[in-house]
């Protein structure tokens, strides 16, 4: 059993995950910038397999979602859970194992994607040996969640804990089903050890994939980020959460409705019409719990205008929540059949993704890290001014990103359908590609600003950590609060 001094918080694993969030953030977003530039300037593919867009794109999505975002989620888990459950770290060895196996997994994942080892299913690209490692990693986290909850001293579970638990259960279930595949070498005794063939075919495979894919978004890029918002916003403004009732309805509404919305990725495909209509309807209703959470977060900041002006961390949190509202309204709209008919397959979807990913996910994680690091390392933030600069640079980056993708996506969608006076398609596909270069370049600028801001962030955090008093580098940090 753990030999930690009782009544003290142990942040060692949380710290480790903060560092891995920084590393994978830089990696994932640099690759993101690179592929953005490749679309605008195709020479950057350099005719090399390891640099070409097609191989790098899944590395970008995996590195930012499973690298950067999950690291952020895990670091806040190891920080927040001790505090709101009012219990010191349990099973620290398990948690360290979690940190190690997780980073190992990501490194192997990136390597295998470079080599073209992929299942092709979005957000589930890793092949079966790594899938097994994913399951082990995930169950390790789950074991820690339930161990902490079991050992808690705070009788009632705080809202953040609800969301972390939902994330664990949701992703666990979905991942298992979607990655069901048969390793071909085990059956045939020849060929690659890494290859597996999907357990589902065609339309069924698509249906399972987007049941998973949509909820990978839900239970990785939304649910645990809400967990963060419910902790860091009230802490940062030192004010009570606006409404328990809203927390309640939003939580149960969200987790129930989310699982039905997957077919909005398959509108007008060959999945049955009634499945599509259901998926669409639930996507519309989904706006209610989404905005419920968003309004709850924003109203918690009520009366704190003055602090918002001076506190960059709060800026990130408030703008993050605003983008949560933006991305979800946009998502619900894109799920409407007649809108999706135009928007699907275009850059408008990519714009939506990054409204969520940059504005909501990355901003909230950045705020969480800004909040946690000085407290975990027992020091002051290196530079508030730098953080403020970072905020404006990155916000500008997001504006560039989504405005260029809105215009590009809608232009693309309209050009694909445009007809001339003879009823013939007005543009060849290549015409529509050529029309988009200016917007792809603009998105590149947005990406560069966002990444630039992130580099400032890393610098600021590293400086902060380096300024920490030596003693605080020990695993045992802050005394347990009452």
């Amino acid at each position, binding site marked *: 059993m753990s030999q930690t001094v009782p009544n003290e918080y142990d942040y060692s694993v949380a710290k480790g995950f903060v560092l891995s969030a920084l590393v994978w953030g830089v990696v994932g977003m640099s690759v993101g910038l690179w592929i953005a530039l490749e679309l605008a300037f195709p020479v950057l593919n350099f005719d090399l397999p390891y640099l070409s867009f097609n191989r790098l794109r899944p590395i970008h999505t995996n590195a930012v979602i499973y690298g950067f975002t999950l690291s952020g989620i895990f670091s806040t888990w190891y920080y927040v859970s001790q505090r709101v459950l009012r219990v010191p770290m349990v099973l620290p060895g398990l948690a360290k194992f979690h940190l190690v196996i997780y980073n190992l997994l990501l490194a192997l994942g990136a390597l295998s994607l470079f080599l073209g080892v992929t299942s092709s299913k979005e957000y589930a690209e890793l092949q079966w040996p790594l899938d097994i490692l994913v399951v082990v990693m995930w169950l390790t986290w789950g074991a820690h969640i339930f161990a902490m909850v079991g050992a808690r001293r705070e009788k009632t579970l705080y809202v953040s804990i609800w969301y972390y638990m939902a994330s664990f259960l949701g992703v666990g279930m979905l991942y298992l089903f979607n990655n069901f595949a048969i390793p071909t070498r085990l059956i045939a005794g020849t060929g690659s050890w890494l290859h597996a063939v999907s357990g589902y075919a065609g339309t069924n495979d698509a249906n399972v994939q987007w049941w998973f894919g949509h909820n990978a978004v839900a239970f990785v890029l939304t649910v645990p980020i809400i967990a963060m918002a419910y902790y860091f916003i009230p802490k940062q403004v030192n004010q009570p959460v606006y409404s328990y009732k809203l927390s309640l309805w939003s939580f149960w509404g969200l987790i*129930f409705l989310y*699982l039905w919305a997957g077919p909005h990725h398959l509108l007008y495909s060959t999945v049955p019409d009634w499945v599509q209509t259901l998926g669409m309807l639930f996507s519309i209703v989904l706006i209610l719990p989404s905005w419920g959470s968003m309004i709850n977060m924003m109203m918690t900041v009520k009366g704190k205008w003055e602090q918002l002006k001076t506190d960059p961390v709060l800026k990130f949190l408030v703008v993050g929540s605003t983008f949560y509202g933006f991305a979800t309204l946009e998502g619900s709209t894109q799920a409407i059949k007649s809108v999706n008919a135009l928007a699907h397959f275009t850059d408008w979807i990519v714009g939506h993704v990054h409204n969520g990913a940059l504005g909501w996910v990355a901003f909230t994680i950045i705020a969480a890290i800004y909040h946690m690091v000085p407290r975990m390392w027992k020091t002051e933030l290196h530079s508030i001014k730098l953080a403020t600069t970072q905020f404006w640079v990155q916000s500008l980056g997001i504006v560039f990103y989504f405005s260029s993708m809105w215009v590009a996506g809608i232009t693309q969608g309209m050009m694909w359908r445009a007809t001339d006076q003879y009823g013939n398609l007005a543009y060849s596909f290549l015409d529509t590609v050529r029309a988009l270069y200016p917007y792809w370049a603009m998105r590149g600028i947005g990406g560069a600003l966002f990444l630039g801001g992130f580099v400032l962030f890393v610098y600021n955090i590293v400086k902060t950590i380096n300024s920490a008093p030596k003693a605080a580098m020990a695993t045992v940090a802050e005394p347990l609060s009452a």
Partner: protein
Amino acid sequence: MFKALFHAIERRPFWFGGAIFALIVIGGIVEVIPSFFENSRPIQGEQPYTALQLTGRQVYIQESCNACHSQLIRPFKAETDRYGAFSKSGEYAYDRPFLWGSKRTGPDLLRVGNYRTTDWHEAHFERSSSVSPGTNMPNFPWLFEEPADLETAFAEMLTVKQVYNVPYDQPGQPPLGDLEQMKQNALREAEPIVAAMKSRQVKEAFAQGEIKQVVALIAYLNSLK
């Protein structure tokens, strides 16, 4: 009353987790499972991929062509005018995994075999801008160098035959046989493709009995109709 109930489970983590799980499974049960029975039958005349086509499909996946290309024609006039007849569920019965994609940086490829040819593909993979000025599709020179992995394709074919009853070796269906026979079939399929190509590298390798990845990929693309 509600509040009391909720407050009660907020104090009982086991029930709390159980409640979450009960709620999240419903959507999948209703939307995913029943449709399994509606979708699984191959459409009349749909055949499983032949040896070389399946090898090419693995190359397509290896290169994540689906990052830029869809294989799903939706039922809109603008779409059927551009790409041909809209998709039907039964056409995908042998697709493991499905390759519908979610982003069209490049055009849909579901029926590209109807309007593109071997020599066009060869030029396009070698240097895409030579046939499509202003494209942002990467060039794929390495596909002309790397040999195709027939063993892994064979393993997949045998697996789907044994586990999912894909009708290889049945009357009127593509042959599989053992690994040696499968390789012979692939070579036979590759012959007309190599003949229609210009690349000396590909031709010389083929003379030695080796199939380059690009040949398999083109066989796959030509089969998309």
